[in-house]
């Protein structure tokens, strides 16, 4: 029985055609996708794939050394080697483990298990061992065992300048100080030995290892002089102990280009015995407070107030008080905004009477500097604060610099403004103050302070020179000369007498600041300081000495000034500096 179907030829052919079209369409989609992946996306994907096709043994770069300005080694390396194995490449785990356990002094069973565990690719057998051990191992040429340089960082002077030099992490990358800030030079670039392997790290047959050599790091020369550093540390350590102080700090600068010669923060710690398991202690000890911490400077700040007044007077500002002829009121107190500001001295029986600016500096008489600040006015005075870079970074090549705390001019009350005149109600870093003073007496040039002199390679060639960078002018040369003459007087006749060295024209200013805690004066807590330099006519060395919370005597004149003298005397002996005529 024939059944005539209702289906025409054309319907089925059309359907077939439609299916062929649909399949062609699908083909076009995935072929287009293949085209895109294989010819366009290829580059990115291939780059990612490369990573999984190889296993690597590290080749560590030698870390650059840190030396002082004369080439004395401050941070170096002791040769060490890491021992690694690639279990999948070890042919005879038992004999290899016997040899390794003998030479490394580790347990045979542990090493044998490590070498037999093929699920792991790269195994660390010893993180750091000596050259002798590696030489002994290398003689036996164990297949699948590799050695890679892994030096130990050593600091020949231990605690010397520890906060400046800083330290490295376990992976030998610099964390703090110069080690951290200049890590990009010191670190160098690690190399690798690359092995072509399968998914689990088994070497491919016939594939050879690719050796990518390491590039050693560059060396860093500091502006620091380790002799001055050692001398200053010795002086400050004595002061730290005799005064039972909370801390003792000092910075020694070359006022001609602001290169840092010494930076001392006590208490300190040995860089070879870093207390890594006590993070709070480590953070406290490794902090370079001279750069990172602020304090109310007190009377040492009067250098800035005096400099501003002299400069304004020379410029012909009628509000400025003439540094030569103006005689300050002899009253002990000033009343500003209803608050009373007293002099530290009682002004009885002719003390602090009829003073000129020079005498006001000698006596460190607070009311006189209140008068100056108020006479100059906030606008002018804040211009000088900005020029001396208070509330701004000095630009030192060191991490974690604080900019200090400056009350905003727009909301500044007169009573606070008046106190800024003698260095209270303002917080600065010691480095800011030292730099401001240096520029006030060096002819008015403010440079960015520097810790690093240059970067040089192993062959001694200089790769980068850190030149002095002039940040701006603070005062004129004439102002500088006048001010310096007055500060010389402070040491010769005034509160700075204990820093006097016969024949060397030492100049300076003392400071005794009360400490504030939670907004109120902390009874019995002072910061005693002295900022000094010599010779006054052409300054070569400038030192800021800070004794934090001395017990007993607390005046800057008696606690800090002698330290500066000892430092200067030491420098004079060290470099055999001849006397200058006065």
């Amino acid at each position, binding site marked *: 029985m024939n059944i005539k179907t209702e289906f*025409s030829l054309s319907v089925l052919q059309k359907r077939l055609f439609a299916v062929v079209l649909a399949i062609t369409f699908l083909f076009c989609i995935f072929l287009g996708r293949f085209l895109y*992946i294989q010819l366009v996306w290829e580059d990115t*994907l291939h780059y990612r*794939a490369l990573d999984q096709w190889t296993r690597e043994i590290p080749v560590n770069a030698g870390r650059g050394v840190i030396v002082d300005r004369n080439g004395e080694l401050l941070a170096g390396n002791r040769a060490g080697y890491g021992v690694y194995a690639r279990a999948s490449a070890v042919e005879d785990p038992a004999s290899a483990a016997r040899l390794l356990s003998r030479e490394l002094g580790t347990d045979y069973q542990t090493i044998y298990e490590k070498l037999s565990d093929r699920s792991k690719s790269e195994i660390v057998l010893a993180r750091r061992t000596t050259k002798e051990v590696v030489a002994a191992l290398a003689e036996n040429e164990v297949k699948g065992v590799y050695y890679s340089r892994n030096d130990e960082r050593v600091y020949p002077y231990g605690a010397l300048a520890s906060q400046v030099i800083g330290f490295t992490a376990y992976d030998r990358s610099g964390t703090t100080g110069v080690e951290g800030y200049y890590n990009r030079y010191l670190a160098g670039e690690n190399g690798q030995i690359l092995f072509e392997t399968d998914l689990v790290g088994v070497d491919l047959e016939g594939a050879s290892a690719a050796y990518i050599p390491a590039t050693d790091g560059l060396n860093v020369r500091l502006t620091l002089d380790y002799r001055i550093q050692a001398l200053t540390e010795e002086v400050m350590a004595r002061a730290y102990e005799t005064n039972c102080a909370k801390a003792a700090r000092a910075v020694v600068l070359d006022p001609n280009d602001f290169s840092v010669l010494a930076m001392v923060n006590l208490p300190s710690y040995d860089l070879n015995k870093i207390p890594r398991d006590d993070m709070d202690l480590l953070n406290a000890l490794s902090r370079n407070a001279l750069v990172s911490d602020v304090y109310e400077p007190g009377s040492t700040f009067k250098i800035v107030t005096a400099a501003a007044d002299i400069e304004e007077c020379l410029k012909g500002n009628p509000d400025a008080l003439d540094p030569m002829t103006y005689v300050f009121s002899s009253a002990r107190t000033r009343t500003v905004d209803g608050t009373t500001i007293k002099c530290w001295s009682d002004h009885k029986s002719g003390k602090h009477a009829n003073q000129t600016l020079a005498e006001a500096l000698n006596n460190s008489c607070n009311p006189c500097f209140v008068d100056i600040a108020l006479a100059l006015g906030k606008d002018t005075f804040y211009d000088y604060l900005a020029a001396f870079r208070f509330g701004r970074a000095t630009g030192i090549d060191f991490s974690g610099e604080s900019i200090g705390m400056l009350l905003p001019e727009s909301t500044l009350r007169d009573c606070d403004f008046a106190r800024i005149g003698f260095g209270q109600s303002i917080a600065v870093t010691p480095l800011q103050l030292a730099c401001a003073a240096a520029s006030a007496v060096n002819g008015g040039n403010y440079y960015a302070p520097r810790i690093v002199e240059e970067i040089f390679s192993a062959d001694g060639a200089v790769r980068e020179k850190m030149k002095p960078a002039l940040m701006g002018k603070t005062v004129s040369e004439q102002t500088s000369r006048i001010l310096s003459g007055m500060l010389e007087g402070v040491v010769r006749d005034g509160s700075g007498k204990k820093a006097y060295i016969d024949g060397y024209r030492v100049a300076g200013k003392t400071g005794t600041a009360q400490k504030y805690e939670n907004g109120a004066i902390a009874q019995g807590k002072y910061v005693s300081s002295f900022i000094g330099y010599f010779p006054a006519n052409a300054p070569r060395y400038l030192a800021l000495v800070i004794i934090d919370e001395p017990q007993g005597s607390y005046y800057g004149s008696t606690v800090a000034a002698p330290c500066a003298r000892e430092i200067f005397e030491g420098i004079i002996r060290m470099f055999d500096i001849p006397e200058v005529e006065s």
Partner: protein
Amino acid sequence: MGKSNREAGRGDVLFLAAVILLAAFGVVAVYSASSYNAEVQYGDSLYFFKKQLIGFVLGLAAIVGIAFLDYRKLKKLGIPALILSLVLLALVFIPGVGRTNYGATRWIGVGPVTVQPSEIAKYGFVLFTARYFAKDPARMRTFKGILPVIGAGAAICVLIMLEPNMSVTMCVGALMIGMIFLGGVSKKALGVICVPALLLVPVLIVMEPYRLQRLSAFMDPWASPKEEGYQLIQSLYALANGKLFGTGLFASRQKYRFLPFAESDFILSVIAEETGFMGVLLLFALIGFIVWRGFLIANRCDNFYGYMLAAGITLAFAIQASLNALVVSGCIPPTGLPLPLVSAGNTSLVVTMAGMGLVYNVSRHNERKNFIGYTK
């Protein structure tokens, strides 16, 4: 039925040659993709190669055996084939018989021999459907008429889905709709089938959380490079390494155990790596040629049964090849689906070659004229 018209001719030899060439290439590709892994896992780099070679020889035997039958005698097999398929699929779930691999029970095993019933079920469905429609093409006209086909397809789908094997389920679903469409069913009836089927896809995806994970991994494989995204990333790396001309035969880098299922579901990745985009283009030219000739054979067939048989088998092949390529190139989420005739896996190879032999058989009985209109 006039005997004069039934003389068997030489048939479409080019079609047959293309099929055998592709399968032979598959044997080589399996060797290349599997040798390293075979050495590591079985201590014999030829492990998969030997198996595939056996499959290839069995496949050739199947082609020879089937080519000289009269395919119209297979009409009788319509219902038994469907029953056999369903029984085999059900056997998977019997403990001790079913074999579980990679979290799915897709195989049945007797001693060392394992068989993947879903590969057989595809062709069982084609045999059944061709027979069912050929017996009374008028069945096409009504929805009721095509219901048994949908029932058979749905039964197979459900059993495969339970394994679970989403991709093969989708294959069978697409094959079912494709065959009903090729059979000439009215557009209205087609709509009644297609709409619910399409609606079912998102439901199935949401039902199993792992499918959703794979779906998101496919959007951004690097979001989970060690888990869901791993397979696709490795496939992409292989493709990228191949560039235009490939790394050269046997020079795949990804086959060193980076690419999972390199010899089976992802063999196309290795081929693309070793022979480049040009190789992929040539491979799909060959596959496209087989599909085109297969449909041509269907088109030239003088009876409805032969037409449905040839078109159905060719369609199954085309769908599976396309889905595999879409997976490998990351157009759709990764699923376990072999590249027919090429991927390692003997059930698939032998059954597909046998199916292709059947299509060739149809071509041998075709007359020169283009005519489809009578049945029986």
